[in-house]
């Protein structure tokens, strides 16, 4: 469904992603794990079109989208829930959600029905329907960010560190929702520093280090790989 071929991404002269090639098949949950500054967010920005590739190809559904504007990629079915939530603080929960479906030009009734679908998935948001997004807790903002991305009816959902800064209980809740999204048929590319949880639910995963893929395999393989355990799961070789 998504194929990256030798993708390079840079901030001016500084290369952040180097010759990355990854594949995501329809229906999979693919995780990208790696430390802070490894280039994970940059990679997702490149796929969503927020940054131009300096070289390489991004292919979605067999078509090259490397030069497509971000709003056109959304229309093709790629939605990004960005790092740090980035909800619209001065708009209500309801308006944030409807903005997620902006390009679909739905009638008010259809919008309400789809917002209701998200409320079924994220019941906490229902109670906050008319509150400004800025008044939500971090966990609720994260749910809003994911729900807003889902309002675009994406076939590929890009999630950038959905666990960032959240309490363990909320993280459990959010990972539970990711698992249920997979069951509903959405393909997911999940970026996480919380490597253990991401690898546990991922079909396949890649390890990114200073902009390059250094390791790949099934989620379980990486979860039990000594190097991964040492570097990202806080478990030393001797203990393992």
């Amino acid at each position, binding site marked *: 469904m998504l194929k990256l071929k030798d993708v390079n991404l840079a901030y001016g002269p500084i290369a952040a992603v180097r010759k990355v090639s990854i594949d995501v098949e329809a229906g999979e949950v693919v995780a990208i794990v790696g430390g802070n500054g490894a280039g994970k967010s940059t990679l997702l920005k490149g796929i969503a079109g927020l940054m131009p590739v300096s070289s390489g190809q991004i292919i979605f559904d067999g078509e090259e989208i490397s030069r497509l504007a*971000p*709003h056109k990629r959304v229309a093709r079915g790629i939605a990004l829930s960005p790092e740090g939530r980035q909800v*619209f603080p001065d*708009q209500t929960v309801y308006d944030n959600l409807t903005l997620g479906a902006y390009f679909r030009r739905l009638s008010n009734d259809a919008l309400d029905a789809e917002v209701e679908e998200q409320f079924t998935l994220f019941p906490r948001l229902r109670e906050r329907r008319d509150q400004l997004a800025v008044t*939500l807790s971090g966990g609720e903002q994260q749910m809003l960010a994911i729900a807003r991305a889902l309002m*675009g009816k994406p076939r590929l959902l890009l999630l950038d560190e959905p666990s960032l800064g959240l309490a363990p209980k909320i993280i459990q809740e959010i990972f539970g929702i990711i698992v249920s999204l997979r069951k509903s048929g959405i393909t997911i590319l999940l970026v996480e520093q919380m490597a253990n949880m991401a690898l546990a639910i991922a079909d396949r995963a890649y390890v990114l280090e200073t902009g390059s893929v250094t390791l790949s395999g099934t989620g379980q393989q990486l979860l039990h790989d000594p190097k991964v355990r040492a570097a990202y799961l806080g478990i030393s070789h001797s203990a393992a």
Partner: protein
Amino acid sequence: MDVYLQTLLSGLAIGGVYALIALGFSITFTTTKTLNFAQGEFIAFGAFIGVTMLLLFSGLASTTTAVPSEAASAWRYPAAVIAAGAVAGLMGVLIFLLAVRPFAGKGGMNWVMSTLGFGVMLQSIGLAVWGPAPVMVPSPLGDDVLRIAGAGVRPQELLVLACAILIMVALDLVMRRSRIGKAMMAVAHSPQIASLMGINVGLVMIGAFALSSGLAGVAGVLIAPIASASLFMGIGFALKAFSAAIIGGLNNPRGCIYGGFILGVLESAVGLWQAQWREIVVFGLIILVLAFRPAGLFGQAAVDKV
């Protein structure tokens, strides 16, 4: 008493014009983080396009220093206002594409120079087309002074005030309620995140410049019967409107509107007392306000949860 009412109404009328233009500054600033420093020329062009339209609609020669009053009667004046708004709006699209977009979002202040330069070019073109002489423009409501509670009010002042309020209330509703308004708010918050919603950010920015410039054009035709149309009229209005936007808070459209009215009334009140002190007192107060409230009277500090 009546003289105070008169001063208040004239202040509100001129303030309404400042508010329209200030709102235009706010619209481009929030969506593109740039300002159109040729706004003054858009006001003057608006006035002259209005003049040209009035003459055209009534089949009169285009070289004249005063538009006869029958030329502004019935449908002609509203049609001239709409035409001036539309032409200024198109010019706004041009200035965005030619002078702003190449520099917007790249850091630096090149867009200041390029919009100022665009304004200088516009003024030269205007002088070549319409000449340097001011043109008297009639009010569609005539020039007989109305008596309201003993106060003498020019009908055009009431018309300006009514139009300004109507336009601003309509825009406020559109911004807060409509799909496109919410998209503009999203772009104002973050163009990148807005694009993730499938919003065509480039198009919204073009629309913001068209709207902002259209407002300046409309303001030009509205004020022309009071101030006369002149290619040199714009800079004064644009500077006052810019000040109004600053004291109201550039990031806050409603604040800019309040700023416009406050400035208009203040200016009118000081003028009543000592006309020659008007500009000094007005700008002195603006500096004072900014010293104590750097974000403007109604400017909000950024509220963002990390």
